[in-house]
């Protein structure tokens, strides 16, 4: 990227490369450690945190109410019906899982690609992944008619001698999502062990020492440990990468394997994955920008990060756009199938056509602004954009689920879909739950991986004998 239009004396610019720095200059091992661990170890919690925490908690409670009512009355409290037998629940499920993907992507794929800049954002991106998966994972369970029998989806030796049916994509989901959740948690925790050690060693209070002590498992930074640790991280990254791609692929199978026009298409896997990353990065930005402001982390989460994420969104956004285009092309011209043709016509101009245009606006039209560098470099604007994209991606799932189902093969059984208050309560509730968990995270765990930041400081460079002897001299 060009440097001329940036003021030369900007400390955030690397004098050599002219690029935006990943970390502001003048940081030492100590300062980094201080800055990050203080957030967690400080005895007095900022009021803003309490405010947000309580608000989120309140909204999460709404989810609880909605779910209790759901179990009392049945899925009939939602708007789902025949023919639209899947509604918000599945939409939210796909949406949340998608969001989760960015975390894994940042921590795993970018790690593999040795993208140093990822280091400061990967921790809370991973946290976001986990909480998103929590929200997502809830839906497949509660959306079924008889949730208390959910365990039938796992292969266990029952006295009925009956087993799950492995041809069903839903069952694939069970394995994909559970694996994804497990691996994400493990990856996250493993990555945190050294920092937990730091917290253990810096915390004053006995309880903190005790808790972090246990969690750190007695980490003491032996280089032997470090080497194995690095290998393990690399392997986990290597595994998480195909995993994250497979998870959304499998989820797209839920649709692609079915024969509903608008679902039954081979392009879903790639464009679901792209979409997932798209929405995921949007969510990372949605979280990163307020946090960096609130905790003054501009040095760690720099414009460079935001700018890069903006680029990633732009790229994935374009892939998604290509996906839509292909869909239109295939159904209108290429497939020569009446079903496909009608589906697309109906999706665009049918009674629910508005939802399609919302999605086009939010996911394709507006994000083109990301081409502009100034736009990408402006936290406020890009924050706004991230919200728009999240909305758009939610509507993508709405369009796929609802507008495909409500008018399929048999005209006699066409129907419609009008969400009920309980649909909304459940969706908004998960947003509450998500932020609730996130507030807990930023308060009690290091949201930026100290050890990895240290690694990126100039001091970390091993200098040759000569300088050292001189250094030893004085």
């Amino acid at each position, binding site marked *: 990227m060009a440097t001329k239009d940036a003021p030369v004396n900007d400390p955030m610019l690397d004098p050599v490369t002219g690029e935006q720095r990943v970390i502001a200059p003048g940081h030492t091992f100590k300062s980094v450690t201080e800055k990050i661990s203080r957030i967690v170890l400080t005895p007095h919690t900022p009021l803003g945190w309490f405010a947000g925490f309580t608000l989120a908690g309140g909204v999460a409670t709404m989810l609880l109410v909605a779910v209790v009512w759901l179990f009392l009355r049945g899925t009939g409290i939602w708007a789902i019906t025949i023919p639209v037998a899947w509604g918000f629940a599945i939409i939210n499920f796909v949406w949340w899982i998608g969001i989760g993907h960015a975390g894994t992507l940042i921590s795993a794929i970018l790690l593999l690609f040795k993208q140093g800049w990822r280091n400061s954002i990967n921790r809370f991106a991973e946290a976001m992944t986990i909480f998103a998966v929590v929200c997502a994972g809830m839906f497949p369970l509660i959306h079924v008619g008889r949730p208390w029998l959910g365990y039938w989806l796992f292969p266990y030796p029952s006295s009925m001698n009956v087993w799950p*049916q492995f*041809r069903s994509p839903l069952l694939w989901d069970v394995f994909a999502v559970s694996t994804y959740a497990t691996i994400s948690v493990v990856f996250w925790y493993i990555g945190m062990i050294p920092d937990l050690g730091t917290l253990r060693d810096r915390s004053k209070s006995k309880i903190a020492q005790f808790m972090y002590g*246990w969690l750190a498992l007695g980490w*003491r930074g032996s*280089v032997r440990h*470090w080497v194995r640790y690095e290998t393990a991280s690399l392997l986990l990254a290597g595994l998480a990468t195909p995993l994250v791609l497979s998870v959304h692929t*499998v989820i797209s199978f839920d649709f692609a394997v079915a024969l509903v026009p608008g679902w039954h298409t081979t392009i879903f896997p790639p464009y679901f994955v792209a979409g997932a990353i798209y929405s995921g990065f949007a969510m990372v930005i949605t979280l990163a920008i307020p946090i960096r402001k609130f905790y003054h982390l501009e040095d760690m989460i720099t414009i460079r990060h935001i700018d890069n994420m903006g680029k990633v969104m732009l790229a994935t956004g374009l892939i998604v756009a290509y996906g839509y285009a292909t869909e239109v092309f295939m159904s209108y011209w290429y497939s020569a199938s009446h079903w496909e043709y009608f589906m697309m016509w109906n999706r665009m101009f049918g009674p629910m056509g508005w939802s399609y245009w919302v999605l086009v606006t939010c996911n394709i039209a507006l994000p083109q602004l990301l081409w502009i560098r100034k736009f990408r470099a402006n936290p406020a604007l890009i924050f706004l954009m991230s919200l728009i994209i999240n909305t758009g991606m939610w509507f993508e799932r709405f369009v796929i689920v609802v507008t495909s189902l409500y008018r399929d093969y048999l005209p006699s059984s066409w129907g419609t879909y009008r969400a009920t208050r309980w649909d909304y309560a459940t969706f908004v509730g998960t947003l509450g739950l998500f932020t609730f968990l996130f507030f807990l995270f930023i308060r009690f765990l290091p949201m930026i991986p*100290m050890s990895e930041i240290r690694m990126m400081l100039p001091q970390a460079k091993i200098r040759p004998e000569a300088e050292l002897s001189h250094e030893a001299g004085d």
Partner: protein
Amino acid sequence: MPEREGTYGLLAEFDTPSQLVRAAENAYAAGYRRMDCYTPYPVEEAAEAIGFHKNEVSLVCLIGGMLGVTAMFSLETWISVWSYPLNIAGRPYFSWPAFVVPAYEWTILFAGLSAAFGMLALNGLPQVYHPLFNAPNFRNGATSDKFFLCVEANDPKFEPAETRSFLEGFAPVSVVEVEY
């Protein structure tokens, strides 16, 4: 663990990784083997210096993965072909294409868990008690901004006075004796 008495080793503290690496290299050259470096972030050079090159985590991971794929694929096959064969949508009992997906997921699940827990096991973690934590300065720096080299007492070449002076040759911040 059995009660051990006496000295665990000598702990030299450095300010920069470079110093640590130099000290380690020399110590190794001097014939010390039972020693270890402690750093707040991975310093590969240090590991090289003390002659620690490869590890077995990858192998464990591989085994785990193979276990996963075999387990799930055979489970699926057994269930759908032998345990309770049912005519599902006119598909064959052995619908292997469908079975690939869960098998694939379990490969990753098992591999991942093995890698993680294998790493911990090989590192001998959890080990919340360690003699080094007795060192007054260790926990101040080892996990934040200081670099340590510890020559252990059970090294054949270990000789308290000698080793101490040897270490002090590298201008450490301090050299302390660590008790069990």
